[in-house]
């Protein structure tokens, strides 16, 4: 955010896109006409700004995101046990952009920091350092609090556990109406009720289900309610933190199909977080692989699965059980994720990596990309040096 004219014009831009978002909600998305309509009125200096409904424009830009948690023992314990403070870097220098209308996935094992990223992106957790920009507006920018507030209702989150994320004492209609009332999106109770009914039908439930309580629904239906609540404020960016990992496979298929349909209908942008590689492969257009708080590889979904570069990605893919019984021979996997309080020096993957050498043990590899923005980026010394042995 350098010059004032740009930021004021992007302020206008954000309200324009909000209206477009509503229009897109009514009709199926049409990228061609959408951009054609908005381009003529756009000043030329703003041509590069995220404004039109165009796939290439970034909606979310995350740069250098880091989150450190203080996991020290209480002060008195530290005094007696002569211990210093302990910090856990849950997320370490994570950067990525998400383009409008795409699904960007973060995949990793437990403790990789993917959920912490999700919480920071929706604003549930302040970052220690780094910035999150949505449509060019920094969420931490106090000077632009009005813009940030306007953006808030366009970001929503779907949580992992549909049993814990719905208030058991509220009727479903009240749960779904809460964002509508909070953001003042409908006039009068009748309009709210109608909107809740619409949302329930949208996710495959009956409007009459609104009178029920969450416990009367199965896990899959509850996740549908969570999706309806998330859609209530007409968002265009949804952060989905393991939305199907608490569900059975046949129900998971229903929810994944629903999420894809909604994306096609409303042009939603997803940040999709999962530990399940096959789910990620199915949903995402681009994938970031996380290990101990860092992104070790970012690549388009197809490239990542056909040509994984980072040794950790290779290992993860190899560990996926072979469902179709092709007789694939698994390599023996070494070790487990180390303790994040005391991570290994250099590349954090080096104790488990078959390609480790002295440099890997000392120097943290940055995320490097050889070619254009559409190819992948990988954080590995061995890949950079084109080394295939230690």
């Amino acid at each position, binding site marked *: 955010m350098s010059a004032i004219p740009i930021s004021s014009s992007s302020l206008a831009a954000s309200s324009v896109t909000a209206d477009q978002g509503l229009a897109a909600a009514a009709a199926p998305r049409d990228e061609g006409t959408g951009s054609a309509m908005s381009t003529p009125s756009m000043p030329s200096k703003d041509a590069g700004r995220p404004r039109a409904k165009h796939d290439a424009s970034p909606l979310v830009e995350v740069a250098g995101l880091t989150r450190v948690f203080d996991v020290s023992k209480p002060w008195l314990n530290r005094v007696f046990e002569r211990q210093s403070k302990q910090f856990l870097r849950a997320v370490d220098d994570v950067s990525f952009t998400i383009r409008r209308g795409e699904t960007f996935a973060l995949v990793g094992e*437990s403790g990789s920091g993917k959920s912490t990223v999700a919480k920071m992106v929706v604003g549930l957790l302040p970052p220690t350092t780094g910035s999150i920009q949505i449509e060019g507006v920094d969420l931490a920018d106090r000077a632009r609090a009005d813009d940030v507030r306007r953006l808030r209702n366009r970001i929503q989150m779907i949580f992992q556990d549909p049993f814990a994320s719905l208030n058991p004492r509220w009727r479903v209609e009240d749960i779904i109406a809460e964002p509508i009332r909070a953001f003042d999106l409908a006039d009068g109770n009748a309009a709210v009720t109608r909107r809740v009914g619409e949302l329930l039908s949208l996710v495959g439930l009956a409007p009459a289900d609104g009178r029920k309580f969450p416990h009367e629904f199965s896990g899959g239906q509850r996740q549908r309610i969570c999706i309806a609540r998330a859609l209530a404020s007409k968002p265009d960016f949804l952060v989905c933190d393991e939305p199907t990992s608490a569900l059975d496979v*046949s129900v998971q298929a229903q929810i994944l199909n629903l999420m894809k349909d909604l994306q096609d209908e409303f042009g939603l942008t997803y940040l999709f977080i999962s530990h399940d590689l096959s*789910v990620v492969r199915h949903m995402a257009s681009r994938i970031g692989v996380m290990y101990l708080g860092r992104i070790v590889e970012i690549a388009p979904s197809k490239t990542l699965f056909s040509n994984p570069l980072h040794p950790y990605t290779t290992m993860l893919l190899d*560990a996926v059980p072979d469902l179709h019984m092709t007789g694939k021979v698994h390599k023996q996997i070494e070790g487990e994720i180390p303790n994040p309080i005391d991570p290994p020096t250099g590349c954090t993957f080096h104790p488990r990596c078959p390609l480790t050498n002295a440099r890997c043990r000392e120097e943290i590899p940055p995320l490097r990309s050889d070619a254009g923005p559409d190819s992948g980026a990988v954080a590995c010394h061995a890949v950079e040096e084109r080394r295939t042995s230690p």
Partner: protein
Amino acid sequence: MSADTDRPLLRVRDLTVEFPTRRGTLTAVNSISFDLKHGEILGVVGESGAGKSLTGAAIIGLLEPPGRIAGGSVELDGIRVDQLDAVQLRALRGKRIGMIFQDPLTSLNPLYRVGEQLTETIRTHSAVSQTAARERAIALLKEVGIPAAENRIDAYPHQFSGGMRQRVVIALALSAEPELVIADEPTTALDVSVQAQIIALLKTLCAERGAAVMLITHDMGVIAETADRVAVMYAGRIAEIGPVREIIQSPRHPYTTGLMGSIPAIEGDQDRLIQIEGSMPRLTDIPTGCAFNPRCTKAFDRCRREVPPGLTLDRSRVACWLYDQEARNP
């Protein structure tokens, strides 16, 4: 191991598990039958509420009251397990049937060192000295791949990571050299890379010992990697049982077909997943006839009226009227 190789190690016939409640009796497992041969790995797969864990619990006699075996028989090597009293069951459990649970943190006692738990189990089932038991415990821990087992044996469960804890649980289950191991979702709480290690370990150790495994899981991928035969359960019944290759590559029961199609593939592109509409019925309102009929796209009259019996096709058994010629063309 029994010299009589013709007789299956485990023979389950018409096993029924019921829960009496105020609103009537719920049948959670409904007359299921299967055999398990020595050294064989049988996968039991199904979604939550299918009754797969209860089947395992019934076999090892760990049903929580008020749940009870309401009918049928469980025979381990000729012994009617379902008719044993508590004392006899205790002697059998651990010794001849080992059990591995889903959550390794709750299946280990947090107040005892790992070594104490292992030696206690070893000494319960065989008359050895404390030192000998400890040596065996260390050997077992080494075998399940715990580095520096001599030192780690005196650690408490919370000092181990999830994968290491599950290794300890496997060591516990195998400590008395059981002939049958019941593993209930052994890898569900673990990360995918650790899961691969645990599956490989379980497979090798049981093969070395010739132990049969009943592997209960919701993950078809784990079954495909591990099992020799697989039983697909739905609403308390076995929908389809047969060799793993047959079931996975050419499933016959519409539920199995749907289940396989709903798993996103890691290779290849598909835009939409095959979805089975609806969800598994609650135990309080299991539909009449085939329990799957309201969700089945191929259901016809008879499916809504009569429960399909198990029909033998090739080496599989399928409970579906589609494969009964007479039912289709009366």
